[in-house]
C-alpha cells in the first residue's frame, strides 16, 4: 500500500475560495466569542468584570470586523459584488459559520466562561503570532495588530483560572469541571484540513498543528499554578473535517445565532 502521506504531486496553488474560508474562520471565532461575551452585559459578577468582559468582546468584535472586511474583498474577486460585513455576520446560516466549536459553548457559570476564554486565548495569541509572518500582507497586518490586544486577554483569563482554581473548594471544583468539560473541544484548534494545508504550503495560513506543543506547555503551567489537573486527551470533537471549521456545529450554535441575527433579519436593510 502506498504511503498516503507521500507527496506525489506538488501542492496546488490555493485559490480565493480557500482563502475566503480561511479568513472567515478567523473572523467567525471573533464574532461568535464576542457575542457570547456580550451575553454577560449587565450580569457580570462585579462591575469591573462586567466591563472587562465587554472590552474583551469589543476587541474580538473589532478584529472580527477587520477579518470580515478582508473576506468581503476576497469574495468580491471571484463572486462580485461579494457580501459585505453586515451580510456576512447577520445573513449567513449556522452551517456557513466556520468558527471553532469551543467558542460557541454556552457561558455557564463564571468558571465555564473564563475556562473557555483561557483555552481559546492561549491558542489565539500563538496563532496570531504565527500569522504575523504570513505571506499574505493583509493577514499579517491584522494578526500583528490583534495580537497586541490578545496578549491582555490571555493575561486576564489565565489570572482567573488561577484565582478560581487556587481559591475555595467550590471555585476549585467549578474550574476543574469547566476545564474537563471543555477539553474535548480543544483538539479542533490543531486539526489541519485541506484548506489549511494548501494555504499553509503557500505560506499564507499558520501551521495549526505546530501550535499544539507550545499551547500545551502554557496551559500546563497555568493549570499547575491553579492546582488543577490537566485533563487526559480523550475523544476530541470536530476532528477529521467534521467540526466548526467546516460548518458543523453543536446544538448551542443555532440558539446563539438566532439572538445575534434577529434584528437584522426582522428588519432587512435597516441602518443603524
Amino acid at each position, binding site marked *: 500500500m502506498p504511503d498516503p502521506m507521500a507527496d506525489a504531486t506538488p501542492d496546488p496553488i490555493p485559490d480565493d475560495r480557500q482563502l475566503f474560508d480561511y479568513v472567515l474562520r478567523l473572523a467567525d471565532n471573533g464574532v461568535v466569542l464576542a457575542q457570547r461575551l456580550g451575553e454577560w452585559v449587565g450580569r457580570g459578577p462585579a462591575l469591573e468584570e462586567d466591563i472587562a468582559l465587554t472590552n474583551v468582546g469589543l476587541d474580538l468584535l473589532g478584529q472580527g470586523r477587520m477579518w470580515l472586511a478582508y473576506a468581503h474583498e476576497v469574495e468580491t474577486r471571484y463572486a462580485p459584488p461579494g457580501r459585505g460585513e453586515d451580510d456576512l455576520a447577520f445573513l449567513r446560516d449556522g452551517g456557513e459559520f466556520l468558527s471553532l466549536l469551543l467558542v460557541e459553548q454556552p457561558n455557564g457559570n463564571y468558571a465555564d466562561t473564563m475556562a473557555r476564554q483561557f483555552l481559546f486565548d492561549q491558542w489565539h495569541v500563538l496563532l496570531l503570532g504565527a500569522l504575523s509572518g504570513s505571506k499574505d500582507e493583509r493577514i499579517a*497586518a491584522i494578526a500583528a495588530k490583534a495580537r497586541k490586544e490578545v496578549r491582555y486577554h*490571555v493575561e486576564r483569563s489565565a489570572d482567573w483560572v488561577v484565582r478560581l482554581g487556587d481559591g475555595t473548594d467550590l471555585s476549585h471544583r467549578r474550574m476543574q469541571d469547566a476545564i474537563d468539560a471543555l477539553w474535548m473541544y480543544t483538539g479542533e484548534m490543531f486539526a489541519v484540513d485541506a484548506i489549511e494545508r494548501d494555504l499553509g504550503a503557500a505560506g499564507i495560513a499558520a501551521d495549526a498543528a505546530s501550535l499544539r506543543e507550545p499551547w500545551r506547555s*502554557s496551559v500546563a503551567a497555568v493549570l499547575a*499554578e491553579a492546582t488543577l489537573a490537566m485533563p487526559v486527551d480523550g475523544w476530541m470533537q470536530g476532528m477529521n473535517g467534521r467540526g466548526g471549521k467546516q460548518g458543523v456545529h453543536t446544538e448551542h450554535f443555532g440558539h446563539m445565532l438566532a439572538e445575534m441575527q434577529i434584528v437584522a433579519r426582522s428588519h432587512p436593510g435597516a441602518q443603524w
Partner: protein
Amino acid sequence: MNAVVPQVAGAEAAIWRALGSVVDPEIPSISIVELGIVRSVEAEADGWVVSITPTYSGCPATRVIEADIRSALAEIAPARVRIVTRLAPAWTTDWIAPEARRRLREAGIAPPRYGSTDTAVPVRVLHGAAAGRGPGGGIACPRCGSLRTTLVAQFGSTACKAQYRCADCLEPFDYFKPY
C-alpha cells in the same frame, strides 16, 4: 503647535494644524496627531491623502475620529482630501508624544510605559509583582507620584486602560496600557 507636527508650510501645514485640533473623544486632553493616529499627509495629483491608523480594533471612537477629521478639514477647505486607513505597522503607544504624556498625567491618567511589546511573548505573564502589578509594580500614581499602587482590573473605562489604586493618596486612577 507641538513637536510631532512636521515643519512644513502652506496647505500641508494648514492640514496638520486642522488635524491637531481633532481630539480623541475618549481622551479629550490630547489630539489625534499627538496620539500617533495620523501617519502621514501627502500630496497627490488632485488633492491630499491623509493616512490614519486605528488604535484598538474595537474602539468605538474610530468612526467618530474619522468624522471629526472630515469636518475639521472641511472648515479649512483645502483641495480634495482622501482619508485612508493603514494597518501596518500597527499603532503603538510608543508613538504618543512626550508632551501628550504629561497632559495625560494631568488628566489623571498614568501614561503608558515605553517598549510596547511586539517582540516578547508574555503568554501567561507571571502573577503578582513580576507582572508589573501589586505593590511595587512600578506604575506611578498620576496624582501624587507614589509607586505604591495596585492593579484593580486589567480593563478600565475603555479597553485601552487598566484600573489602578494608589495606596498613598487612596485615589483610583486609569493606566493607559502599553500597546
